[in-house]
């Protein structure tokens, strides 16, 4: 901690704070991991006994909230790493499938029903793939946690200039997040997801549905030009389609 404070000394206050948070990942996660570890253990042990249904519901509520807090923490740490310069944004050429598919598999293994639609011919994109995966993963888990039964509806559309990922948000969820009406949503997690996606190279838009729900569309540019141009884009993150 002292090293972190000394290293950050002399930098502007916002950078100093970002540097501090960026270096505290392990220390912020550790107590939360202990809470989740203990909760998981109790769920297993209590789940085996009859008459403990209420405890099980309470423990699962702790587990759900703890996991949401872990997600918020990971977003904050990732943003702090980017903004402090500790782990700058690195754009590389990759596929959206390599981002989306492991996330959906993980959700399925946690009991979520997945509805995935694909359009167009799969083609590479240019983005900070790791940050895009972190942000999209949190977004999908947020949607799943808010749905009446654990489910995620997502569409991946490959177009000539870009690839879009559309995530369907139900009416209750859209209202809770402040997505209805205008674009000034109020949910902290959603704000952090959007900020990290912007860093990663993804544009963000919201389409409103007649039932009060919404679709969050993330658009990631495809690399343009010759292989040399692409390498230069990867190096400098200068793709013209990036926000």
């Amino acid at each position, binding site marked *: 901690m002292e090293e972190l404070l000394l290293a950050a000394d002399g930098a502007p206050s916002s950078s100093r704070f970002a540097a501090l948070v960026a270096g505290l*990942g*392990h220390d912020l*996660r*550790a107590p939360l*991991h*202990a809470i*989740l570890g*203990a909760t998981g253990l109790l769920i297993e042990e209590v789940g085996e006994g009859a008459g403990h249904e209420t405890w099980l519901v309470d423990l699962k509520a702790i587990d759900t909230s703890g996991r949401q807090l872990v997600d918020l923490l990971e977003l904050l740490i990732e943003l702090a790493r980017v903004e402090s310069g500790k782990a700058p944004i690195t754009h590389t050429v990759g596929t959206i499938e390599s981002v989306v598919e492991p996330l959906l598999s993980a959700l399925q293994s946690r009991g979520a029903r997945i509805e995935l639609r694909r359009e167009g011919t799969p083609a590479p994109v240019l983005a900070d793939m790791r940050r895009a995966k972190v942000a999209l993963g949190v977004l999908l888990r947020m949607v799943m946690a808010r749905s009446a039964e654990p489910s995620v509806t997502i569409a991946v559309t490959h177009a000539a200039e870009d690839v879009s990922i559309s995530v369907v948000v139900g009416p209750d969820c859209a209202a809770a997040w402040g997505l209805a009406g205008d674009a000034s949503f109020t949910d902290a997690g959603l704000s952090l997801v959007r900020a990290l996606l912007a860093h990663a190279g993804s544009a963000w838009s919201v389409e409103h549905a007649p039932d009060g729900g919404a679709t969050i569309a993330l658009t990631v540019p495809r690399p343009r030009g010759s292989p040399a141009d692409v390498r230069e884009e990867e190096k400098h993150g200068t793709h013209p389609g990036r926000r």
Partner: protein
Amino acid sequence: MARILVVDDDTVFGWLTQRRLQNAGHIVDVRGGPMGVFADLSKGDYDLVLLDLRMPALSGADIVRMVRSRKGITTKIVLYSSVDEEELAERARTLGVEGYATKGEMSRLLDVVRSVLGSNAASA
């Protein structure tokens, strides 16, 4: 069933891990730091050591290097930490240990232990 040594300065996580592994049928001892670890491992009684990466005085990485430099210790090593998963995977690869598990997904710990004990794979 295997004999497992957990080395973790976080006492809460130490007993949590012990209980989790004992529930799965393993015989588990816990050490709250590096003191005595080499003596334990030299006896050859453990099939696997679950090693916290960040500990005061001697880190998990230091312990791995020291264990690997000693002939006769063949215990499999799994790194176990709350550091970023990508960093943990990279540490496991560079240190040449048999596996790694993030403390954030304790439910996956048993899979990693099973995988490492069941094979000589370079990672889990």
